[in-house]
């Protein structure tokens, strides 16, 4: 008996796409996401290059597609722990971690109002705090609160339980295991920003005004910790002079030997964030090669023409801090100008690359030497998106669409042959 349903692991842009595309084609789909909300990394982005449009716009459409799609069921706060079987007949064990809030939640915010403890907000890369009872972010889908089990004081506090008029809070909620029977699996667990702290010469983690590109997205986002004001973490000062350091981790055998594909354009885009917030600001981009494929070249050309944007060919060797002012100093060889430069900035943004995030150790999932899901490993299991290779959003969506077809073929093939 061939199972015609598809499991999609990870509900970032790739997983969402693969799941929705398969479901809209008429297949039963289970979508499993480890966070409490769908959307993954792109939900934390401020704008997409090159259109400078908000990711929530496309996510809203995708969520609407989910709302109207009966073939698709999703599980949040859930992780795949085991996969067994073969193409057409996989048995998947999924652990759903307790959210402590059930479907009664109306997102009325009463629990957060009374919650006495705070937790670091990892959605904003720990730049701010939320209560232990919180909505992951304003556009969170599903629009339902979560209680951080680690921060919550538990039943001895129980203030939220009292405040909730809808019996939505279950502090006793336990993790539960769900078994899914599926015919094919799309693995779309995405990426994580490379740990910039490991690039010791760049001072991330030691100097507050050295941030990463993903943090920059939150700083620029109206939903972020600063309400969209791009300020220095050290003193909240509006930035006047910003440097972007490309290939911070990527194209580097000491870190990620591959190119992360998106950072050049991401930094050019973030340069526009800085200039939009403060047209008088100065932006410098330190690069090895600017990689703007296809029509992205137009965007590169446009940003390059901005009088306040300077491109410096030269990978910085070191970033220093002026302890007095908090200014950060970038030391680099300006190769085209043929000189060594030491420039002072308010803020340095490290264009940290994409490390694959394959998630659970599932033996059936074949990973390559760099931790990416390798092509053609196990029939019936397909990588999609950035867990396969570093991709921009549109390419990830394309890839996920193709993975959805591969998954469908798996179920059909078994049917034809078996």
């Amino acid at each position, binding site marked *: 008996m061939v199972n015609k349903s598809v499991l999609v692991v990870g509900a970032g842009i790739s997983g969402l796409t693969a799941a929705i595309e398969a479901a809209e084609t008429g297949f039963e789909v289970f979508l499993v996401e480890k966070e409490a909300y769908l959307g993954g990394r792109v939900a934390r982005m401020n704008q997409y290059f090159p259109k400078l449009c908000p990711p929530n716009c496309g996510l809203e459409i995708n969520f609407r597609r989910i709302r109207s799609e009966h073939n698709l069921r999703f599980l949040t706060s859930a992780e795949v722990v085991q996969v067994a079987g073969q193409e057409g007949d996989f048995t998947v064990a999924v652990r759903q971690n307790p959210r402590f809030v059930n479907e009664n939640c109306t997102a009325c915010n009463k629990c957060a109002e009374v919650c006495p403890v705070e937790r670091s907000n990892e959605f904003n890369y720990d730049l701010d705090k939320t209560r232990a009872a919180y909505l992951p972010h304003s556009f969170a889908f599903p629009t339902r609160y979560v209680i951080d089990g680690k921060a919550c004081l538990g039943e001895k506090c129980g203030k939220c339980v009292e405040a909730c008029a809808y019996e939505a809070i279950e502090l006793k909620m336990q993790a539960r295991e769900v078994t899914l029977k599926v015919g094919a699996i799309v693995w779309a667990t995405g990426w994580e920003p490379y740990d910039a702290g490991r690039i010791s010469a760049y001072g991330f983690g030691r100097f507050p005004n050295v941030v990463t590109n993903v943090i920059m997205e939150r700083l620029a986002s109206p939903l972020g910790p600063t309400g969209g004001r791009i300020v220095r973490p050290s003193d909240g000062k509006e930035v006047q002079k910003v440097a972007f350091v490309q290939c911070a981790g990527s194209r580097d055998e000491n870190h990620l030997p591959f190119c992360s594909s998106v950072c050049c354009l991401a930094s050019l885009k973030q340069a526009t964030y800085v200039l939009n917030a403060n047209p008088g600001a100065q932006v410098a981009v330190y690069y*090895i090669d600017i990689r703007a494929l296809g029509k992205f070249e137009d965007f590169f050309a446009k940003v390059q023409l901005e009088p306040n944007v300077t491109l410096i060919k030269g990978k910085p060797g*070191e970033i220093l801090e002026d302890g007095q002012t908090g200014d950060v100093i970038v030391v680099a060889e300006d*190769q085209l100008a043929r000189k060594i430069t030491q420039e002072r900035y308010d803020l340095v943004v490290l264009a940290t690359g994409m490390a694959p995030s394959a998630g659970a150790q599932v033996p059936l999932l074949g990973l390559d030497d760099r931790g990416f899901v390798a092509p053609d490993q196990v029939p019936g299991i397909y990588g999609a998106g950035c867990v396969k290779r570093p991709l921009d959003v549109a390419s990830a969506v394309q890839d996920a669409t193709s993975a959805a077809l591969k998954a469908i073929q798996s179920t059909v093939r078994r049917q034809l042959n078996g």
Partner: protein
Amino acid sequence: MADNSASSGRLKYEAGFAREVYGMENGSYLKLCMQCGVCAVSCATFKIMDYSPRRLFALVRAGRKEEVMKSNTFWMCTTCLMCKARCPRGIPIVDVMHDLKGLALKQGYVNYPQAAFYQAFWQDLAGRGRIFEGGVTARYFLKRGPKDFGKIMAQKDVGLKMLSHGRLPLRPPKAVKGKKELMQMVAKARELEQKGAN
């Protein structure tokens, strides 16, 4: 060997020198350089180098042997290893610099203060297995010839200061124990180097 100061006034790319460098023990690592420039500013002595390592490598590829060999870049390398640690292509830049020093000495690109100092240092060291600062200094200035004698006086304050701190012994130190064995090792190394070069 193409003359780079050709009448056209253009730098002529020529592959011979790059091949020569690639033939050295660590020279072929240079092929991997992607000209990112991180070495240029990771170097402890970048401020006094004629060319950054990155630029030096670009010159090697361009075939500009004279400029490369006459530069002070590799002589200024203090083998601090920072460049090697940071090089995103894993190039052992320090070892490449070492090879270039060897090439320079072998091919007679020695008419530079750094080359003279290296030679003086080595000759002094190889004699007894220990350094005699006075001996190195003397050898150095002898190598440089009369044109640099004027500089001796410029260094006198440093010398006197070192003397007063007991950092400048007036008599050569004793040779190391097992000087004979040391000499054998040096001879063997020379032999190997000779073989490797052919």
